[in-house]
């Protein structure tokens, strides 16, 4: 039972040019493209459609099917729910009224929420494409190269590295507890809710204490091997010009769409 399979690495191995492309190119390109998406004004449906087209091209090139992408983007969509109240709070012409509650939804509110949904979904799709086509270590290396503080990169790296270890530890603790959670015929098993909650609290505390101990052992072992605070990588190949050119073309196309829409 791997916890990483649920919450960990989002890399989906495929043989494609998108996968082979350098994370130091892909990461800034993805971030800039998301910035372009964020600049699309409310109700600019043509611009949003034009921005979606290159994303579809990259997804196809990376051999990541629409179903795969839909499934992953749905995970992020619940966060968009915070935008929904805008339907009722944005002033404008009334489009409908909620029965009983008497709330008025406006056309302007609907447009605003639909735009936020579309922009969020496109942005999440870009992020999904990046994470699915780039091993997390490569992404972190790119973050470091782009000047992210080493403490931040290190924290993310170790969280990723030990997530599965600590997750498996939790799974084993739960198994050991369940193994001792027996019932006798004719007796109420399980004790009181408060007692069971206390047990869970102790388990969480114990897991935290063990993680702390582990971090000290890991740090000692790393220092023993000369760790000074900077994660080092075996080799850093030069960034290929073709990749930069293609990525730049995508980003420029994105901003051209936004600019074109603003000028039109």
């Amino acid at each position, binding site marked *: 039972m791997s916890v990483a399979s649920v919450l960990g690495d989002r890399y989906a191995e495929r043989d494609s040019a998108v996968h082979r492309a350098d994370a130091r190119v892909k990461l800034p390109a993805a971030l800039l493209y998301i910035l372009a998406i964020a600049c699309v004004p409310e109700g600019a449906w043509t611009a949003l459609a034009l921005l979606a087209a290159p994303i579809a091209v990259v997804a196809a090139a990376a051999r990541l099917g629409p179903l795969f992408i839909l499934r992953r983007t749905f995970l992020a969509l619940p966060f968009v729910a915070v935008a929904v109240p805008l339907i009722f709070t944005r002033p404008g012409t009334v489009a409908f009224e909620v029965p009983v509650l008497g709330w008025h939804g406006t056309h302007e509110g609907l447009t605003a929420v639909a735009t936020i949904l579309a922009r969020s979904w496109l942005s999440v799709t870009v992020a999904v494409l990046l994470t699915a086509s780039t091993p997390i270590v490569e992404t972190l290396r790119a973050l470091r190269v782009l000047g992210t503080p080493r403490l931040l990169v290190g924290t993310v790296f170790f969280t990723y590295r030990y997530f599965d270890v600590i997750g498996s530890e939790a799974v084993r603790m739960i198994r050991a507890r369940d193994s001792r959670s027996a*019932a006798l015929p004719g007796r109420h098993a399980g004790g009181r809710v408060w007692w069971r909650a206390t047990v869970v609290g102790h388990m969480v505390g114990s897991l935290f204490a063990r993680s702390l101990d582990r971090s000290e052992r890991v740090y000692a072992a790393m220092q023993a091997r000369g760790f000074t605070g900077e994660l080092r990588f075996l080799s850093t190949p030069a960034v290929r010009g073709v990749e930069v050119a293609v990525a730049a073309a995508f980003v420029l196309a994105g901003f051209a769409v936004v600019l074109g829409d603003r000028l039109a």
Partner: protein
Amino acid sequence: MTASPIDPSVLALDIEALRYAYPDGTPGLRDVTLRVAQGEKVALIGPNGAGKSTFLLNLNGILRAQSGTVRVLGEALTDASVRSIRGRVGLQFSNPDDQLFSPTVLDDVAYGPLHMGLDRDEVLRRSREALAAVGMADFETRAPHRMSLGQKKRVAIATVLSMGTPIIALDEPTASLDPMSRRELIDLLRALPHTILVATHDLAMVADLLPRTVVLDGGEVIDDRPSEDVLNDAALLYAHGLEPLSAHGHPHA
């Protein structure tokens, strides 16, 4: 520690054609069949990844096989019976830190009996009896995470003993123990009247304590004979990631 009121002719464990695959599809157990009589002490040996721990986790329904049956003292393991089966098969996990989560030793040993809904006096009586049996009676108020590995392992066994399960399965109980702690643990297990199943790489302990040996490899039962025969079969041992005792200087018991 309580005597079970079950007909002694009923098999402690009756495992039939057990087949288990991990969630990712990797086969863990392939048609494992094993019968263990009450009071038997059986060794489960085999290389790392042979399926020993997976097998033990199937005995009280922590993992559930895709096919095959597990019968414990005549009772089939089902969704309905799993809680009662856990009152009959106690598992000691290889890492005592996974097993001990309470702030004090006594709390931890009391967990099992408390969960079974026993009254306070009975819980205390069982817990103290179990701690005395493993020689840890003076450690009631100590914090488990501050103790040595040998002490933790003994407390972990006490947490199973206090439940009064007639069958105990242990996963590598002697691993990483110093020689004296190991000796004490073996003597403790020898003194227990329980049906005992031990997954281990410690063949000297097998020779000393467990009259019957089951060899597991690739999720399959390779051999099941008196320990003396298995331990003298050098070809068999070498073929399954093990080493005859004479090769590293331990005399046979």
